[in-house]
């Protein structure tokens, strides 16, 4: 089962929830959980490793296939530049210029070239590292600084996850655009982490629209720092029929654990029960 932990707003506690859930399932595994995998899909700012301190294998490079034009074979017909939707190719004088940073790696230019003068070469955009935290499998992706394309890295980080027997927890990036969608797509359940503030509510609405309405995945809400703000999120969830599966109270010892980079289930053991209850809620909703 793949559970994607997402949120519209940043800093609501996705990583806290993903790590808490994964560790709880690892330490007190329910009967149906054969293995636990955590994949940090927030490739722009992967933070789960800060809590988990995994032992990681060598980094895999994530490449985009970008065109390389063979000047000998090229007739400067300009067909490649014409079909490129991202303006990554331009015929200038007697040369075809390739702007790798604009390329989405779609391969359209290679397919269209009448002279077969275009080949594709790998262009590094980031890395993926795989490792373990005890018996839990851990994967995280890293987008190189300044690169615009997070989705291929998320896809590579998730590779093989769909065939996992056990529970796969995905820590998604914030927002509701492409990288968030890539981290929710194909999941069996999306947990939306929010806080009871107007900001949390505003961004929850966008994330809910993607997960439930566009991708058609069952969703549940986790309210973090419960006790601050207003009852806007509660009322919204009731009106939308979205279950609130867990409330993490706004407490000093939880905030301290977070600030020290310690998983909250270690300093507040009773939260482990709460996370196992959360898993029960997810399992019920999925079946």
């Amino acid at each position, binding site marked *: 089962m793949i559970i994607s932990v997402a949120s519209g707003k940043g800093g609501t506690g996705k990583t806290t929830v993903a790590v808490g859930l994964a560790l709880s399932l690892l330490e007190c595994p329910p009967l149906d959980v054969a293995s636990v995998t955590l994949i940090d899909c927030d490739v722009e700012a992967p933070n789960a490793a800060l809590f988990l301190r995994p032992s990681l294998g060598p980094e895999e490079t994530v490449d985009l296939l970008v065109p390389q034009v063979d000047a000998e074979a090229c007739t400067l017909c300009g067909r490649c530049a014409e079909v490129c939707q991202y303006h990554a190719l331009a015929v200038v004088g007697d040369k075809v210029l390739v702007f790798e940073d604009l390329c989405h790696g779609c*391969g359209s230019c290679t397919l269209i070239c009448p002279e077969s003068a275009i080949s594709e070469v790998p262009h590094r955009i980031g890395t993926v590292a795989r490792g373990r935290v005890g018996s839990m499998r851990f994967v995280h992706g890293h987008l190189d600084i300044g690169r615009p394309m997070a989705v291929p890295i998320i896809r590579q980080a998730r590779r093989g996850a769909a065939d996992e027997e056990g529970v796969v927890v995905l820590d998604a990036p914030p927002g*509701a655009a492409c990288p968030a969608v890539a981290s929710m797509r194909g999941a069996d359940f999306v947990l939306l982490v929010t806080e009871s503030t107007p900001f949390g509510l505003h961004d929850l609405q966008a994330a809910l629209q993607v997960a439930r309405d*566009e991708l058609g995945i069952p969703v549940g809400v986790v309210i973090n720092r419960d006790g601050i703000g207003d009852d806007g999120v509660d009322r919204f969830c009731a009106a939308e029929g979205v279950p609130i599966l867990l409330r993490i109270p706004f407490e000093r010892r939880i905030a301290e654990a977070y600030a020290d980079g310690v998983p909250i289930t270690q300093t507040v053991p009773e939260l482990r029960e709460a996370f196992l209850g959360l898993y029960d809620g997810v399992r019920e909703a999925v079946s």
Partner: protein
Amino acid sequence: MKQILILSGKGGTGKTTVAAGLAHLASAEASLVLADADVDASNLELVLHPELEETTPFEGGVKAVIDPALCTCCGRCAEVCRFEAVMDGEDAYAVDAVACEGCAACHYQCPAEAIAMVPTQAGEWYRSQTPWGVLFHARLFPGEENSGKLVATVKQNANLWALRHRHRLPSHRRHRRDPVGPAGHRAEHVGAARSGADIGDGGPLWRRGRGHCEQVGSQAHAGGRDRGVLPRPWHLAHRPNSL
């Protein structure tokens, strides 16, 4: 004009809080133009309570649409698509609009010419009035891409507004840089179009009269560094008469 960019790597650290606080304090001394560049989850509007003045649709990219009447189910589109966006339907293939990156590879490869590239509206951008200044903000529709382009649109319009509505010409000492590229999302930025007596380096130049100012304007433009600066005529068109 001074531009201040508020940025963070991590989410939820307080960008909006700082932007709103700064706007509140700075508005006492300068006329402000505010821009919420976090188009994915724009929250500055929740704090500033803007009054909406103008809404403009934002056209994102194009997306492939397969005409089922023309589709021969040869499967070429699914073969060339690298974004897992083509689904094998019952008697025709179909495109998953959320996954489609609009690369048009399938459009060019389809032997039956059954695939059209259709422009989509990916969001909206807004100009609003707040007690602290004009706010430019936007909403990227959930699941859409091209947020970099929408960020650029918001910033560009905020810059343009600041330039048009301030009461002095650009100084040649002014270095206006794009704060972050289009990928600099999760940022609010506060552009202050300063006015009044406190006019800094640009002041003396500006008082030298129209002829000199024109020259400065055209130099800045010819230099090509000021990417956001419009061709010269509007400087003059928008100058207050009292100058």
